[in-house]
C-alpha cells in the first residue's frame, strides 16, 4: 500500500511538472500581459511606465529563463509572487483553498449520498413510477446548466423566500463564533454546494441505477436469494456494495470536473475560493497566480484520484496494491 501511494505520488509529480510547463507557455501565448492590464488600470500610462512594470515582473527576461526560475521555485514549494496582488501566490491560494475544499467536498458528499440513495431507490423499484420520476429528474438535472440552477436558486431561496444568503462565505461583520459561526457558514454553503452537487447527483443516480440493475443479474445475487436472504439485505449487502465500485471509479474521474464546476459556482455565489481566483487571475494575466491555481487544482485532482483509488482498493479485495 505504501509503495502504491509512493509510486502514485512520484507519477503525480511528473504530471504536475508537465502541467506547469504546458500552462506556462500556454498562458503566455495569450494576448496582453499583466503590464498591459495594470497600465490600463492606472488611469494613465506611457511607454516608460509599461516598461517599468515589465521589468518589475521579470517579463523582459527570455521565456526559458522565466520558466526555469518558476520551476525552481515550485520545487521548493514556492509558487512565486503575484504581480498584481503583490503577495506570495502560496499565501493567496492558502487563503482561498479552504473555502474551495469545503465547497467541493460538501458538494461531493451531497452528490454521492443523494445520488446513491436515489439510484438505489430507482433500481429497487425499476419500471415503476418512482423509478420514472427519479430517472426523469436526474436527466433534467443532468441537462440543466450549472449556472442556470445557481441563478434560479438565488432567486427562489434568497430573494423570494429569503431563507438563504445569496453570496459569500459568512455574514460579514457579524463576528459569530463557535457554533453560531458554523451555522452561519453552513447556511452560506447550502446553495453553492447544492448547485454543484445536483449535477453530479444526477450522474451518480443514473450510474448507481444502471450499475445495480447490472449487478442484480449476476450469479451471486441468485446465490443470495437461494440462501433465503431477505430482499433488503440482498440489495444492500450484495447488490449495492458491488454496484458501488463503478460509481467510485466515476467519482474519481469526475474530480476534475468537480473542481471546474467551482469556477462558475464560486463566481455566481461570491464564494471566496480558488475557482474564482483562477478566473480573476486569467483576466488579469497574473501569470504566477494563474499557474499556481492550476498547479493546486491539478494536485487536488491527483490527490482526489489517489483517494478514490485507495477507496476502491479497500472496497474491492480483488485488487492488490500494485500498479
Amino acid at each position, binding site marked *: 500500500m505504501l509503495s502504491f501511494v509512493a509510486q502514485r505520488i512520484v507519477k503525480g509529480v511528473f504530471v504536475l511538472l508537465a502541467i506547469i510547463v504546458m500552462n506556462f507557455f500556454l498562458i503566455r501565448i*495569450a*494576448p*496582453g*500581459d*499583466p503590464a*498591459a*492590464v*495594470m*497600465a*490600463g*488600470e*492606472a*488611469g*494613465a*500610462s*506611457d*511607454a516608460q*511606465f*509599461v*516598461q517599468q512594470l515589465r521589468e*518589475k515582473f521579470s517579463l523582459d527576461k527570455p521565456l526559458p529563463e522565466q520558466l526555469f526560475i518558476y520551476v525552481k521555485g515550485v520545487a521548493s514549494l514556492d509558487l512565486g509572487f503575484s504581480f*498584481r*496582488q*503583490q*503577495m506570495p501566490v502560496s499565501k*493567496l491560494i492558502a*487563503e*482561498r483553498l479552504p*473555502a474551495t475544499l469545503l465547497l467541493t467536498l460538501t458538494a461531493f458528499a451531497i452528490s454521492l449520498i443523494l445520488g446513491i440513495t436515489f439510484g438505489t431507490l430507482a433500481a429497487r423499484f425499476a419500471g415503476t413510477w418512482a423509478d420514472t420520476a427519479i430517472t426523469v429528474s436526474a436527466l433534467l438535472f443532468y441537462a440543466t446548466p450549472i449556472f442556470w440552477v445557481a*441563478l434560479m436558486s*438565488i*432567486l427562489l431561496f*434568497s*430573494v423570494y423566500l*429569503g431563507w438563504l*444568503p*445569496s*453570496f*459569500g*462565505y*459568512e455574514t*460579514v*461583520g457579524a463576528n459569530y463564533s463557535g457554533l453560531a459561526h458554523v451555522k452561519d457558514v453552513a447556511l452560506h454553503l447550502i446553495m453553492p454546494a447544492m448547485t454543484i452537487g445536483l449535477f453530479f447527483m444526477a450522474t451518480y443516480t443514473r450510474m448507481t441505477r444502471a450499475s445495480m440493475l447490472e449487478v442484480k443479474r449476476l450469479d451471486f445475487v441468485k446465490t443470495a436469494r437461494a440462501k433465503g436472504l431477505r430482499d433488503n439485505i440482498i440489495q444492500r449487502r450484495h447488490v449495492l456494495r458491488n454496484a458501488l465500485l463503478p460509481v467510485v471509479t466515476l467519482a474519481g474521474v469526475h474530480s476534475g470536473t468537480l473542481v471546474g464546476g467551482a469556477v462558475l459556482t464560486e*463566481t*455566481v*455565489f*461570491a464564494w*471566496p*475560493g480558488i475557482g*474564482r*481566483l483562477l478566473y*480573476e487571475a*486569467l*483576466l*488579469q*494575466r497574473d501569470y504566477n497566480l494563474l499557474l499556481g491555481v492550476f498547479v493546486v487544482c491539478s494536485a487536488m485532482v491527483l490527490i482526489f484520484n489517489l483517494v478514490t483509488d485507495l477507496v476502491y482498493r479497500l472496497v474491492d479485495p480483488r485488487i492488490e496494491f500494485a500498479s
Partner: protein
Amino acid sequence: MLKKFVLALALSGVSTMALAQEPKIGGTINAVIQPEPPGLMLALVQNGPTQMVSGNIYEGLLRYSKTLEPQPGLAESWTISPDAKTYTFKLKQGVTWHDGKPFTAADVLFSIETLKVTHARARNNLVQLDKVEAPDDYTVVFTLKQPFGPFIGIFEVGSMPIIPKHIYEGTDVKTNPANNTPIGTGPFMFKEWKKGSFIQLVKNPNYHVKGKPYIDGIYWQIIPDAAARSVAYETGKVDVLPGGSIENFDVPRVSKLPNTCVTGDGWEFFSPMAWMWLNNRSPVLANKKVRQAIMYAVDREFAKDVIWNGLGKVATGPSSSAIKFYTDNVPKYPYDPAKAKALLKEAGYKGEKVRLMPLPYGETWSRWGEAVKQNLVDVGMNIETIATDVPGSNQKNMEWDYDISFTYLYQYGDPALGVGRNYVTSAIQKGQLFNNLEGYSNPEVDKLFEEGAVATPDSKRKEIYEKVQKILVEDVPVAWQLELQFPTITNCKIKNLITTGIGVNDGFRDAWIDK
C-alpha cells in the same frame, strides 16, 4: 417611441435634504466593491476600486466640490501668485497618521517624489513643476516652469495621495510590507482584508475634523457577479452600490425598490466620456468621410436611452460638458443613416471588412458594441466583432491593432489634463493606452492645445479651446458617443454620501445613517 421607456430617475438633490437633518452617530455601512482591488496603497495602485476604498484611508491636499471648486483637505488654505507660477499651501496642524505619528510638510514632499516614480498620471500632471519646497513644517510651495492652467485641479486624493514618509523612507516603496496595511490620515483606518470576501475599514477616532466620521466603519463586500450584487442589495446585505456595480439594464428595476435613492452625482471630477477610437491609420478609416459617416450611422440617442437608461448625455465633441471651456457651438451629427450611406458612397467604401472591438467591461458594453455593429451594418458596412478580455483589448489598443475600438476615459475637469492628450501628435506613442491612440495628427490642433495649456487668463484659454473643439468635431478623429453617468444606488437611510466631485471615493467622511 423609445423615449417613452426612458426611466425618469430621481437624480434630485439627496444631499440638500440630508443637510437639513442633524447627522446621527454610529452604524456600519456595507458597500459593494467591484472588482476586488489589487492593492490598497494608493500611491502604487490607482485603479478604480483602489481609489474608491483608499480614498477614505488616504487624503489629498485638496478636495473638490461637485462644481470642481477646490476645498480644504490636508491643506487649510492656498494662494496662487499673480504670475500663476507659485502655489503656496498652508497645511492643517494637529493632523496625525493612523499610527499616531504627526503629519507634516515633509510627508508631502516625500509623497511627491514617490508619486513621480510610481504614479503615471501624477507624473504627467507634474511636468510643469519646477520645484517643491517646505519652508516650514506646515507650508508647501510649488514652483512651476511656466503657468499651467489646470494645476489647481491635481490635488485630489486619487491624483495625489499623501503617504507617510516615516514608514516608507529609505525602503523600496513597491515592496514594503506596510502596503498590505495602509496607513493614511483619512477618516477611516484599514482593519482587515479577507481576500475574495470583504475589506473592512473602521472609524479613525483621532480624525482631524472634529465629530467626523459619523459611522463606525465600512465593509466593502466583494461579489464578482453583477446579478449577485443586485441581489445582495435587494436582500439588504449591502447598502451602497457605487456606480457600475450592477449592469445598467438592472438599474431601473433596482432603482424602483422601496427605500432606494439614486444619484448620478459624484463623477464630476472624472467626467467620463465614451467614444470609439477610429484607427486613422486604417485605409478605410483614414478617410474623413467614412469617419463622419460613422458619426451619422450610430444611433447615440438609442444608446443613451436603451443602454444607459437615459443617463448621461450625447457627446457633442471632444470635451465633456462638465469640462471647462466646453462649447456646443460645433458641427452636429444627428442619427441619419441615409446621410451615412451617402458619405460612405462618396468615400468609395466597397465593403472592406472593419473590425470592431467592444470594451470587455460587462454586459452593458457588449450590448453597446452589438447595437453599434448593427447600426453600421445597417448602413452597409462590413463589421466583424472582435471578442477579447481586458488584457487582450488593452494590448490591441496599445499596439494600434484595431479598426474601431470602444473606450471611455476620464477628463479630470480641464481640457489640458484629459482632452488634449487624445488628439495631439506628441501623444502618438505606441505602448500606452490613454493618449492619442487613433493616430490623428493635425499641426494646427497641436499648436492650439499647446497654447491653451499655458495661456492666461482663462478668457484666452476659452477662446483657444473653443476653436480647437470646432476643428476636431469637423475632422472626427474619434467617434464620440456619450458623456457617461454612473448612478450610485444607496439605501435611503444612508445620508450625505455624495458630497464632492469624486463622490464615493472620499464620501464616507460625511456620510451618516438615519436609523
